[in-house]
């Protein structure tokens, strides 16, 4: 039975697209068939982060409107044949997405794949509510910073009211990915601590993804971080998150400030 997962946050720039690509690749690496779907109509970027930007022919809106078949628009990953991308349209407007059309496409995706991961646009407008509408579970991506936490709280409210699952009176399963976490700043008292964010948002923690150069490097070359450098700290966090989503029990690894004292003395000056 397929599971539809929405990656959402409210605020932009917190790591939704990175998370979608990394979780999608990690799930596909474990053998599941996965489709990642870009709902950010007009500002598509999942294709770029996945390294498929030159292979886009048809997009989500073409399929929603019936101008192309789902199979024609899906792009199979060149490195991992269980991973597929359904890109967003770059030229059209999000109003081109009809409720009925999206419902039909989501139904088709459910039949073909084990996991369907929807990358939500930022904001709380129609694009974001459409991305979450058909979800069975949600991953809320939050940075340890006041505006991101507040926006996540708002999104959690929408997940509990605007989704089909909520409208049916069922409980929406929600998980938190705390990204761009910097243990050194948290230790110094300059960054919200993990427990603070968990207490405020009160949804279960799926992963803590440390701030890392590896995420930037992966997007630079167009490869999900879990494939580009699977041993890096962010990749390990996403791989563990994918295992938890599949129902495994995996101990949570908390990033720590492991630098030596000498190293700290030199880097603090720059921080």
């Amino acid at each position, binding site marked *: 039975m397929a599971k539809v997962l929405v990656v959402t946050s409210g605020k932009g720039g917190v790591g939704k697209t990175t998370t979608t690509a990394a979780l999608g690749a990690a799930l596909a690496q474990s053998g599941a068939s996965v489709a990642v779907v870009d709902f950010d109509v007009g500002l598509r970027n999942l294709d770029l982060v996945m390294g498929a930007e030159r292979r886009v022919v048809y997009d989500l809106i073409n399929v929603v409107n019936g101008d192309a078949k789902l199979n024609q628009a899906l792009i199979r990953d060149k490195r991992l044949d269980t991973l597929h991308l359904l890109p967003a349209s770059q030229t059209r407007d999000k109003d081109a997405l009809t409720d009925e059309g999206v419902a039909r496409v989501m139904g088709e995706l459910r039949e073909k794949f084990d996991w369907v991961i929807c990358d939500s646009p930022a904001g709380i407008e129609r694009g974001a509510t459409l991305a979450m509408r058909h979800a069975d579970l949600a991953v809320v991506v939050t940075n340890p910073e006041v505006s991101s936490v507040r926006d996540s709280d708002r999104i959690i409210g929408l997940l509990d009211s605007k989704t089909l699952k909520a409208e049916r009176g069922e409980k929406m399963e929600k998980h938190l990915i705390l990204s761009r976490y910097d243990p050194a700043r948290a230790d110094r*008292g300059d960054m919200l601590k993990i427990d*603070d964010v968990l207490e*405020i948002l009160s949804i279960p923690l799926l992963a803590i993804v440390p701030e890392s150069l590896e995420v930037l490097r992966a997007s630079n070359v167009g490869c999900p971080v879990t494939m580009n450098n699977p041993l890096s700290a962010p990749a390990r966090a996403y791989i563990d998150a994918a295992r938890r989503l599949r129902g495994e029990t995996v101990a949570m690894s908390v990033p720590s400030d492991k630098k030596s004292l000498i190293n700290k003395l030199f880097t603090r000056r720059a921080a």
Partner: protein
Amino acid sequence: MNIFNLFGKRPSARVASDRLKLILAHERSGRGGSDLVLLLREEILAVIERHVAVERDKVQIRLERGIGVSTLGVDIELPVTVGGGLAAA
């Protein structure tokens, strides 16, 4: 922990956490319903407009959200011409 904390300066993350808890408590309580402040403003103005012509840009609204109690202040500038009317009323 750094040396400033020893002298009573609160870490900025502590301030962030406290501010978030306060504002989110308010936002969650208002969620789903209409915006109480807007509603109160409109109803208060409607009552006053029954007696006096009020210019909308002469209305100042202040809201202070606190932990146990919030205060709403509405300052309405009344035109001088109706002063006599008000005194007579």
